[in-house]
């Protein structure tokens, strides 16, 4: 469906993207995971024709994006990070405007807006101005506006930023529904739970480079880390624990009264960890051994937390 080869983009002296290559299959939901400033939005901007890369090639269904730009644009739907809607117009007016820009008219436009409003659970509010909507409702209309013209591929740039859990779940359900209908999607996020829950394949991007790519299982398999030990204390540490990491092979994250040790040897590391905590006068409240998460994979690959 989409093949991007060796995309590079720099702004003055900052390299936003370095030879990024992607291959997205038809019907696939591809997650682009990375911290803020990693290059996710730049990738989407380039793939959606908003920015021209300094070098590289983009092919949609085997044809260059720029070969027939207008035609290519009609294949693409973009859900921007910000709420790109007109606040003083109603939901239906917004959707009709965006639909008309893509050449949809009359009955087709009418039925498509109704269908999407129904899908997103906003039919009863369609004649209300966007400015009267909650953050979650705005996000849903923001998604609907990108789907009106039946795009072949949709880019969703962090579509759940700043909304309540209920709206987030609703958006997840919509995305899963669209996925089940065979829509190709590229989903950027810095929330690993979202990528884990939604995506068929995940690309981990950091400092303009794709540093790992594959399904969640593939990423886990390729990682040296196998498990995570989550420890919660009733008190905070009094002694300096900065050197504690040297005693383990894996990565250790300490935050307030919590500690996460990502390790490939949970059996041997667990007793050691308990012993060291006791020695440091830390009282255990909860201890759990979990299977490997994306957060740990990201930490292993980049040496930094996903939300840094």
């Amino acid at each position, binding site marked *: 469906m989409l093949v991007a080869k060796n995309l590079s983009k720099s702004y003055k002296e900052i390299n936003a993207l370095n030879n990024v290559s992607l291959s997205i299959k038809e019907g696939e939901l591809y997650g682009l995971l990375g911290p803020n400033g990693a290059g996710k939005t730049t990738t989407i*901007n380039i793939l*959606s*024709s*908003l*920015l021209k890369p300094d070098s590289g090639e983009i092919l949609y269904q085997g044809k260059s994006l720029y070969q027939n*730009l*207008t*035609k290519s*644009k*009609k294949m*693409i739907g*973009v859900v*921007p*990070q*910000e*709420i*790109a*809607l*007109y*606040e*003083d*117009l109603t939901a239906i*007016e917004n959707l009709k*405007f*965006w639909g*008309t*820009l*893509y*050449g949809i008219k009359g009955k087709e436009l009418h039925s498509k807006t109704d269908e999407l409003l129904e899908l997103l659970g906003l039919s009863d509010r369609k004649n209300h101005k966007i400015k009267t909507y909650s953050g979650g409702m705005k996000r849903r209309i923001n998604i609907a*506006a990108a789907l009106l013209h039946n795009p072949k591929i949709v880019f969703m740039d962090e579509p759940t930023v700043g909304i309540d859990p209920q709206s987030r779940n609703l958006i997840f359900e919509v995305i899963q529904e669209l996925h089940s209908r065979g829509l190709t999607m590229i989903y950027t996020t810095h929330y690993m739970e979202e990528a884990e829950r939604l995506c068929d394949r995940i690309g981990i991007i950091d400092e303009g480079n794709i540093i790992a790519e594959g399904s969640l299982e593939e990423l886990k398999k390729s990682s040296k880390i196998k498990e995570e030990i989550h420890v919660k204390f009733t008190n905070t540490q009094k002694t300096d624990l900065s050197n504690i990491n040297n005693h383990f092979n894996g990565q250790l994250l300490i935050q307030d009264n919590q500690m996460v040790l990502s390790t490939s040897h949970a059996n041997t590391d667990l007793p050691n960890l308990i012993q060291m905590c006791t020695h440091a006068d830390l009282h255990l409240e909860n201890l759990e051994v979990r299977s490997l998460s994306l957060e740990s994979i990201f930490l292993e690959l980049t040496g930094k937390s996903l939300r840094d």
Partner: protein
Amino acid sequence: MFTIALKDIRQYLKDRTAVLLSLLLPMVLITIFALMYGGIGKPKESRPISLLFTDQDNTELSKEVFTTLNDQDAMQLFPKSYNEATGLIKKGKNAAVLVLYKGFQDSVEAGKKVPMELFYDEAKEIEMGLLQQALWSNLFGITIKKGIKGKVNTWIKEKNPNLTNSELLDIQEQVETQFSDFEQSEDSGKMEKNSNLPMTALVGEEKNGNLGLVQAIAGMAIMMLLFSVASSGASLLKEKEDGTFRRLLVSPISPSSILYGKMLSTLFMAVLQLTVMFLYSWLALGLDIFINLPALILMILSAAIACTSFGIFMASICKSRKQVESLSTLIILVISALGGSMMPLIFMPEIMHKLAIVSVNYWAIEGFFDIFWRQLPLSEIYPKMLVLLGIGILLTTISVISFRRNLLKLV
């Protein structure tokens, strides 16, 4: 392009308060300025200029001066003491005081330097200009006549030292009678009549409203329109700030279509505003807008195009709405002052007349003056329309280039 324009118009019309304000504010300003320029009311009626009068001579001649001046339509005299009069001028209550000092009549009759003085407030320059005209012709008429009589009598006395007092008095009476008879004779009337300068107004004889009203409408309508289009143009930057601009750019329309769509909606609003202004001027202020309707329609369109291109130009060279707001306010105030929106160009020095041609306001105001005041045919007005269209094309071209350079870079 049309989809964007229609969306913008819908947004504009939805904000009823803003629509009302954009139409009401110019109406209020036009009315105020029309009142200021004397554009509302009977055209030929003018208020007499008040002049304070201090008579320290208190003679027959000084009283005659008071009566003669006070009889003039253009002037109204108020007798005051010297201190009272100068006090009123210093407080800004009056423009000037004419003081006739002691010995006024004697000096006039003796043909000596006349002891009189005019004290005035320099700030009231315009009023003083009008006052001088009315004052000198009448004041010198009286004093010169008296002065000549005095000179004649003195000359007779000097040349004939042997004459007795009764003979001198007899000669003086004869001189007085000759002057008086001549003033009342047909010859005098003919001379006065023949020396009158006939005046015919070539422009504005068959007036439509009056000069003040046309100036107020043309000047204010264009200035307010520039403010309106600047804020409409800024809606382009609002799109950018709100993120809708990115979405527009990924849609299958060209970036230029976005700009032209914005121009079209701004043009609609500009034409609407000017049309409402002229309808108001017709209904409320009595301006005959049907005097040359085709020319008016074309002039409204030309002015709206030029002003719209200014709004889009501002949006294309600025990077934020704040920049548009402050820069456009500055530019509008400057070009409005230059172009004669705030003050008629006739009150400005020659250099300002030359500078005015760079202003959209100037060409639009001149165009409206051609229609309503000079009542010229369309064939005489169209060059001004072409200048306005030229300004529109130039600014639009620069806008398209700047738009591509600035906005597309900043997504």
